[in-house]
């Protein structure tokens, strides 16, 4: 897929997250939801890099990947509303939402829990001599769990087709890495287990696409570790702002939140689109309200 099309999808995904954020402010959801502002480029690039039989094992902060794989707003939104029209009939909510038909085989709300399961998913592919690869998402918080090390060791020992993608946002809730633990050099750790390591940063969709495809190819012979530097705009669950003194303020009434930095995938997408960007983002925002459930539909859902 060409980078300009991917950039449009990044902005679309940003908008969809805005809509969820606004709905959270209105108290429309009864379930905990973790927005993933700042993760859009990874999600879109990974979606584009996956082969049809590949699978994902996601974390609790999975919204960007759910939208990217569904390539639609409604199934995920309706699931968050616990509607029968949702991606899983309103049964799984947000932190455990799976979409098997889109390759999202497993999603866990428990840090590190998805990694061992991803080993099993990958093991099945290997035994069937399939070329499919499993991408397991994780973070700098889950890296602290024993499951992270165990998974790398097990996957390498059995040469499983597994790519472990660390979204390193330097935060576990409100604590930065330096505030809670000693640093971990994921590259050195991977090297000690004879596992290839590929870093990602800067939200360049072309570079991300190349790196993810390279990782996918390498993973067919055994596990690969990718570490992406991510700036998550909010590290808590629920709406942003989440409380009166929340330093972060995100409001769709002020347009798409875009920060002038390579740490913001939306900014990089706007740069890539150039002159096309203002009109495209305006058209996205203009369509936004039509995506949400009307009060009538909502009353049907609640019955």
């Amino acid at each position, binding site marked *: 897929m060409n980078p300009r099309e991917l950039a449009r999808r990044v902005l679309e995904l940003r908008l969809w997250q805005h809509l969820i954020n606004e709905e959270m402010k209105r108290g429309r959801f009864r379930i905990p939801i973790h927005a993933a502002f700042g993760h859009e480029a990874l999600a879109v690039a990974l979606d584009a890099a996956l082969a049809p039989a590949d699978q994902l094992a996601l974390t609790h902060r999975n919204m960007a990947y759910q939208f990217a794989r569904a390539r639609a707003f409604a199934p995920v939104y309706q699931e968050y509303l616990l509607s029968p029209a949702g991606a899983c009939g309103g049964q799984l909510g947000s932190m455990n939402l799976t979409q098997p038909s889109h390759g999202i*085989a497993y999603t866990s709300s428990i840090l590190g*829990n998805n990694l061992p399961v991803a080993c099993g*998913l990958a*093991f*099945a592919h290997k*035994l069937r001599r399939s070329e499919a690869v499993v991408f397991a998402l994780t973070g700098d918080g889950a890296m602290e769990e024993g499951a992270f090390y165990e998974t790398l060791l097990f996957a390498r020992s059995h040469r499983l087709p597994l790519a472990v993608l660390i979204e390193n946002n330097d935060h576990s809730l409100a604590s930065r890495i330096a505030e809670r633990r000693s640093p971990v050099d994921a590259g050195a750790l991977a090297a000690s287990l004879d596992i290839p390591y590929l870093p990602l940063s800067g939200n360049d969709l072309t570079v991300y696409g190349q790196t993810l495809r390279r990782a996918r190819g390498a993973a067919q012979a055994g596990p690969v570790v990718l570490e992406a530097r991510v700036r998550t705009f909010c590290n808590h669950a629920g709406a942003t702002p989440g409380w009166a003194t929340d330093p972060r303020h995100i409001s769709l009434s002020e347009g798409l939140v875009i920060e002038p930095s390579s740490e913001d995938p939306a900014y990089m997408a706007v740069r890539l689109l150039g002159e096309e960007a203002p009109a495209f983002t305006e058209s996205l925002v203009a369509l936004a309200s039509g995506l949400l459930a009307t009060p009538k539909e909502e009353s049907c859902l609640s019955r």
Partner: protein
Amino acid sequence: MSQPVTPTYLATVQAALARAVSPALATHTPLVQMGENIDKGSCICGLTRHLPGVLTNIGNCELTHAGTGFGLMMNGAHCVLYMKQLDFLLLALDQLANTMQLVRAQGTPVGGSFTIAAIVCDQGLQGPQSSFQGLNGICSTVRADGFAPVAKVELERIIEAQLLRPGFRILAFSQRLFGAPVADLPLLWEAEDQSCFQFASGRDATIACFSFTLDSGAELAARMATGGHSASLYSLHPVFPHRWERVVEDAARSGRLIVFDGGKETLSPAHKLAAQVLLAAPGVRVDIHTREEEAIDAVSEDRFTPPLEELALCG
């Protein structure tokens, strides 16, 4: 003419496992049989010594082994994880509880299966650790089925029906019984889901056995018979939801319930069964013998020892 030699408990388990796995090698693919030292040294105390097919030796990552089993099952594969010993499963509780919850919410995966076959160190002398016997507790916590067979027919039926059945369960085997002749009790009745086996029907008492206490239950029934009394004898397994109607009706009829549980949990299924019986028939005399109070986790005196002589007295 020489007498036929009664096989040991372990030999019966080995033979039943081999019988279940052999045909499955062609029909249940892919099949992963994995375990720590599964084909090395003692082959997990002999448990996996005669297993046919490919055996995958794995490291010491129990949490990941459990998650891997679930992942294989989700993708329609089959996995049997052999484990020495049930204690190790405590390291995998997150996978058992949380992953199992999502598996249940998503519905039974198409065809895939995952079975954990673990040895329970109930032989005593293990020291304060390494003697975890909480199969009922684990199964209750994670809402998964478990089986702790003792009698020959129980072992054979449970392994045949459950080892590669779609979905997840835990099969537990008693190390205390490994070298002993297997209890060859006549089967009167078996529940369709293998949750309950009845070995005797009697007038004077109903004996229900959880967690490798069927041998004690059978000995008690024999002692009662010596005194001219007959007892019904059941072996119960933690299969959810509990369906104990047959035992409850039996106890209501006999007027006496004796429940054994060899686990060490403070909340035993024995109490739940007793409550069900007393709700249905308040006049039933109930004797519960669990290890709640006697489980001292010491090097010695770490066995289930119900007062059989006292219990055998009817009246």
